[in-house]
């Protein structure tokens, strides 16, 4: 039921993706033929650039992931929204202007501006590569999740499709993802999320998604056998025999009891009415034996009020567990510090020429992103009660919510999400291949290359990164993409933020200090993630109890560690010459 395909949907999807690709090629070529790619950027209007900020930042991961987290776990998904937006405050108020004053344009250049050190170049190139790869994983997982219901393809096919398409774009056309394309994507995403929110408020809250009879509380079982065959409740899965969709409203407050629906509701009334209602969520229990892996989904009724407060996803918060609190605090710190440390975000700040226009466009970006994150709350809660959730995959909550209104809307939303993945992935692969060709091979290894050779090395690196992205995208299937982005923020904040902040505000910072802070911050956060309970359980499939790390999000320890290392190493090495 959830995974049937419709020719109309595929048609709309194909047309949408094709026109965005066409536009991207066309504008990209125009940009190159004019005064070069970067000169064209100087003329971009601040409003357009501001929306493009949003287009860049609101990757499909943030859209699919947050809606899914809210739909599955309630309020805790919204905490991600709050954290992602808070990061922009750091970027605008603290980091952006001083970096602009340094007169540099990229992250590595900024860190290296004063020193011209090979050590810094090497450390920053590797950290750019690691952050890019960790940011790539959720994009690929999101792409795989999208094509399953839309095109009827399995997850791995979707990941390979995106990987090949993107690698092809990067290798043949180079950097064509222009500001205009990001502007169109950002505007469409926010516009259609607004449309969806209006539809949700207009529909109001409907008991059992308008289906007759009481809520369906029968457990469902999905078994995956060692040979890969999927069984639903003991018999083979097919188009007709699949998991029933979940996520409904069980009952409304007293005053609506007769009708079973509220009719149109205002934005605040929607939230307060939901708070007095009960919903049907489900518990997932996974077991493994010789017959394969079994997931049992048991529906249960509970007051919606439980889901509208923290503690649904960060479970220990209400139980008073210290490690759960540290884990939560650590994530929120990483989200706060991470945005300003993402290499591809800061670069966007320089796409308009003058400082006032740059500030104005950042504010437009923050406002657009802020509006979007308010909308995610309604999308997530709307999906939670839409009766259209796939209990195996939280990433599909937003597109399936669209499907509860119409197939056309579903195709449009999926297409927007998919093109956003394409844009973000090609940008990340470009950044990564640039780090390999320009920073690692040329500057660090000291290989002299002609322009032609430099392009070839970059393309080879892009193909390599594409393959890595495909492999990881398949490996991490079923992870919530918002959660995965959280890891990228942890690594970025741990590796880059201490160096960035201290370089700007502490004159005693030395090149050895920066190199050490980037290296230690990156290695420590990466190692922590690989040894954490979440990774043990979900990636390696071993019990989370044997994991050596006390909590899963490293930022709370590794961000201060980066600062400490930088200060200690800087004090132990000779002061830089005064300027």
């Amino acid at each position, binding site marked *: 039921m959830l995974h049937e395909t419709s020719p109309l949907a595929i048609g709309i999807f194909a047309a949408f993706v094709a026109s965005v690709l066409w536009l991207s090629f066309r504008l990209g070529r125009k940009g190159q033929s004019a005064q070069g790619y970067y000169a064209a950027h100087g003329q971009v209007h601040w409003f357009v650039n501001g929306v493009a900020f949003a287009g860049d930042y609101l990757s499909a991961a943030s859209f699919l992931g947050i809606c899914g987290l809210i739909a599955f776990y309630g*309020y805790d998904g*919204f*905490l991600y*929204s*709050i954290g992602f*937006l*808070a990061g*922009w*405050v*750091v970027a*605008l*108020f*603290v980091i952006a*202007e*001083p970096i*602009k*004053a*340094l007169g540099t344009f990229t992250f590595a250049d900024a860190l290296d501006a004063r020193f011209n050190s090979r050590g810094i170049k090497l450390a920053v190139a590797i950290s750019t590569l690691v952050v890019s790869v960790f940011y790539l994983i959720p994009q690929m997982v999101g792409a795989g999740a999208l094509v399953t219901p839309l095109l009827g393809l399995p997850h791995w096919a979707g990941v390979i499709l995106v990987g090949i398409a993107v690698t092809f774009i990067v290798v043949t056309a180079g950097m064509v993802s222009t500001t205009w394309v990001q502007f169109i994507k950002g505007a469409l995403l926010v516009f259609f999320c607004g449309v969806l929110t209006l539809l949700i408020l207009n529909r109001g809250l409907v008991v059992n998604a308008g289906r007759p009879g009481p809520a369906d509380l029968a457990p469902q079982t999905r078994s995956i056998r060692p040979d890969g065959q999927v069984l639903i409740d003991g018999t083979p899965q097919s188009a007709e025999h699949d998991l029933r969709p979940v996520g409904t409203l069980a009952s409304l407050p007293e005053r609506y009891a007769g009708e079973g629906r509220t009719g149109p509701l205002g934005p*605040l*009334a929607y*939230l*307060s*009415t939901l*708070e*007095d209602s009960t919903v049907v969520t489900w518990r997932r229990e996974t077991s493994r034996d010789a017959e394969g892996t079994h997931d049992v989904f048991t529906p249960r009724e509970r007051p919606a*009020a439980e889901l*509208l*407060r*923290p*503690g649904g996803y960060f479970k220990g*918060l*209400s139980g*008073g567990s210290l490690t759960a*609190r540290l884990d*939560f*605090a650590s994530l*929120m710190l990483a989200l*706060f510090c991470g945005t300003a440390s993402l290499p591809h975000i800061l670069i966007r700040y320089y796409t308009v020429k003058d*400082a*006032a226009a740059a*500030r*104005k466009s*950042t*504010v437009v970006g*923050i*406002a657009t992103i*802020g509006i979007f*994150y*308010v909308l995610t*709350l309604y999308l997530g809660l709307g999906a939670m009660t839409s009766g259209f959730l796939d209990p195996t995959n939280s990433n599909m909550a937003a597109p399936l919510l669209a499907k509860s209104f119409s197939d056309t809307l579903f195709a449009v939303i999926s297409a927007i999400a998919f093109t956003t993945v394409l844009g973000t992935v090609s940008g990340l692969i470009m950044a990564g291949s640039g780090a390999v060709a320009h920073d690692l091979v040329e500057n660090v290894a000291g290989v002299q290359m002609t322009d032609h050779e430099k392009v070839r090395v970059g393309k080879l690196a892009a193909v390599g990164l594409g393959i890595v992205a495909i492999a990881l995208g398949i490996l991490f299937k079923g992870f919530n993409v918002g959660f995965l982005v959280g890891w990228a923020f942890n690594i970025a904040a741990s590796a880059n933020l201490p160096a960035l902040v201290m370089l*700007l505000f502490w004159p005693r910072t030395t090149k050895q200090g920066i190199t050490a802070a980037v290296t230690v911050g990156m290695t420590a956060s990466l190692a922590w993630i690989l040894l954490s309970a979440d990774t043990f359980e979900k990636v390696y499939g071993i019990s989370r109890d044997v994991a050596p790390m006390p909590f899963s999000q490293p930022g709370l320890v590794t961000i201060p560690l980066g600062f400490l290392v930088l200060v200690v190493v800087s004090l132990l090495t000779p002061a830089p010459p005064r300027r």
Partner: protein
Amino acid sequence: MPINRVGLALFGVYVLLYGGFMGLVLAGPDLLATRVLGGVNLAIACGLGLIVAAVALSVIYILARAGRSRDSRS
């Protein structure tokens, strides 16, 4: 390089708001279940408030900077 006082002051305000909210979450979910503002609970009211605050502070920031950009050298 010049220290950006307006930016740092507004940043300080936001850190207090964000940190205060995290403190509330860590203090326990029960308090956040209190109904305020038109029947919406405190958790959602705070979350929406933080988003509005980020946008409002950034608008204040450009207004404050706009007055100075004429005598700035950048």
